[in-house]
């Protein structure tokens, strides 16, 4: 893989850019230097690596990126329109920079803290957790992110605190700076018996060929419950690379839902380690792609101790010449008896030109476990289609309705009616025929 222009230029002494990378603190600089060495030695992943077999970064690697965003004028009204939810704690990041003016973080509930990574307090809170949930030896993007991370959100929830409103992280790429690359790092720390819902929401306002490289790390102590949803609506020419990684203590529950609608190239690596007994993870997701879009979801669940459970449902709708990759790995380690794991990937192909490469994988080293996995690839059901037409729905509406019904199924495990409704509306307007 050729090195990335614009990105690797930063491999040159980065002391000059520390001002852009937030506080100049020794421990962080040393972390960055390690990341630099790591990135220089491994570079970006290539298709020769199994995990990147179906996803080419060639086009991206030819692109010149900048890390200097010019000023942009996003208004509160715009944020209101873009936000998924109205009644929320809102963290707004514009072109890679936290915006205190646009964020709505007044009157935070006691026991909840929300800070930008770029401020000293946020960084101090993040310090013990940074890099603890991710593997820098894999995928050069994590090293690159660590080298260049400039902002993000740091959230902590104290013991026994149930956060009363969803926290929406609204990440806006305005496109006002051509080929802007942003490297965001989010850290969420959930203390014992705490509860929160966080929505990472990525929006592109133009057709700019931006790059978002984000790493989110979550730590769940025992009995903690974190719903971490993601809605990706980047611009049609954008590249979106994301790592979402957690470590879970006993009786904790991490529920993710990863909805990928935008970007020309989107890659998600989602990983949890179930480290405490009776911990539970839900990993659901939807990719709805058309034109020449490429989306690649790699998920991994490590059952490391006895009595842990996982449920995973990824669904895909592919139209035109789009390409989707699903690789789901469930690893049941040798001590993880009584693991209960279920993983499904289901795909609906709308056109002849699309391609899905799906690979559900289970590696089981324990002998008393209940594990199921499967993958399906299908088309619109002709009997259902005829039934709807025989009730007067025209063919286009009938196809849209069936596609919608297939897709919204992934929202079923979201307990909040409000969030389910908001997401189903977004999915509806994104249907191949533009609504039902």
């Amino acid at each position, binding site marked *: 893989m050729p090195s990335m222009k614009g990105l690797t230029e930063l491999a040159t002494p980065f002391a000059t850019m520390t001002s852009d990378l937030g506080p100049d603190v020794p421990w962080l600089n040393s972390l960055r230097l390690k990341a630099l060495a790591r990135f220089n030695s491994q570079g970006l992943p290539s298709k020769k690596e199994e995990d990147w077999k179906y996803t080419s970064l060639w086009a991206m690697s030819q692109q010149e990126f900048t890390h200097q965003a010019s000023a942009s004028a996003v208004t509160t009204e715009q944020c209101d329109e873009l936000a998924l939810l109205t009644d929320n704690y809102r963290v707004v990041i514009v072109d890679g920079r936290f915006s205190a003016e646009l964020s709505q973080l007044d009157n935070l509930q006691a026991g909840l803290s929300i800070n930008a990574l770029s401020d000293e307090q946020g960084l101090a809170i993040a310090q013990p957790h940074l890099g603890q949930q991710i593997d820098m030896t894999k995928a050069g993007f994590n090293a690159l992110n660590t080298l260049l991370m400039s902002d993000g959100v740091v959230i902590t929830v104290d013991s026994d605190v149930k956060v009363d409103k969803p926290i929406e992280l609204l990440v806006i790429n305005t496109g006002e700076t051509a080929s802007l690359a942003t490297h965001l790092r989010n850290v969420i720390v959930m203390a014992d018996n705490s509860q929160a819902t966080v929505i990472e929401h990525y929006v592109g306002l133009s057709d700019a060929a931006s790059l978002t490289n984000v790493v989110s790390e979550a730590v769940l102590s025992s009995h903690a419950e974190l719903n971490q949803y993601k809605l990706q609506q980047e611009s049609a020419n954008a590249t979106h690379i994301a790592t979402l990684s957690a470590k879970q203590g006993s009786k904790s529950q991490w529920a993710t839902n990863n909805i990928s609608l935008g970007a020309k190239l989107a890659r998600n690596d989602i990983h949890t380690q179930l480290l405490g007994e009776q911990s539970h993870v839900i990993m659901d997701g939807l990719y709805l792609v058309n034109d020449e879009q490429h989306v690649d979801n790699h998920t991994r669940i490590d059952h490391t101790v006895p009595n842990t459970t996982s449920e995973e449902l990824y669904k895909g709708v592919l139209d035109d010449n789009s390409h989707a990759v699903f690789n789901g790995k469930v690893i049941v380690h040798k001590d993880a008896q009584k693991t209960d794991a279920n993983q499904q990937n289901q795909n609906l192909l709308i056109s002849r030109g699309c391609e899905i490469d799906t690979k559900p994988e289970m590696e089981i080293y324990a002998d008393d476990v209940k594990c199921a996995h499967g993958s399906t690839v299908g088309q619109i059901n002709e009997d259902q289609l005829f039934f709807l037409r025989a*009730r007067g729905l025209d063919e286009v509406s009938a196809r849209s309705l*069936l596609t919608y*019904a297939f897709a919204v*199924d992934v929202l079923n495990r979201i307990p909040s009616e409000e969030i389910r409704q908001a997401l189903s509306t977004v999915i509806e307007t994104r249907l191949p025929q533009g609504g039902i």
Partner: protein
Amino acid sequence: MLEIKNLHASVDGKEILRGINLTVNAGEVHAIMGPNGAGKSTLSNVLAGRDGYEITQGEVIYKDENLLDLEAEERAQRGVFLAFQYPVEIPGVSNIYLLKAALNAVRKHQGLDDLDAIDFLTLVRSKLDLVKMDEEFLHRGVNEGFSGGEKKRNEILQMALLEPSLAILDETDSGLDIDALKTVSEGVNALRSDDRSIVMITHYQRLLDYIVPDFVHVLSDGQIVKSGDKELAKELEKTGYSWINDDA
């Protein structure tokens, strides 16, 4: 209302319907009976506009239009209703959504505005009683997890709501126990009217005890070989279908 003239239809090059002639006037109830493989389901599918059938000869006139020129949805919008032998399950689409979309498609064709939510719900509730269905069914996925009887009642609910001019009931009695058969039949009988025609396709005479037809036709090997009144059905019940080919 409906005039079928010398209708020939094939599936994969095999001729299934071999010259059907049938006239159904407004307000009449016709039963079409016949053994397995006679072409009963092909006839209902061809009338409703399912893909996969090649019409090689003949025509079907419905309300002065050639029905065969219309897409399935255009037929439905003009008042042709097929009650399915095997109603499909559509998880993810709620029953109430389907009912609303179907009704609004018909109303749009009639130049009417969509019903608002309250008027629609009032209307649907009034129809639920007819087929003894609980309101809870409205919020479940279309036929999802329904029993055989519930699926058929759901078909009649759709028919009651859409008020078709021509209803084709394809083996509506199949898979029903006697109580469900009574409920479904009562629903259909309540929908009989001078301006609505019903074509019932059935293998068994049993249904005709509950929905008494004006005419009975025997379909065999793609043709109507005998027509009569309800007494013909009773005769069939006694003698079975074996005499047909001898007689013809």
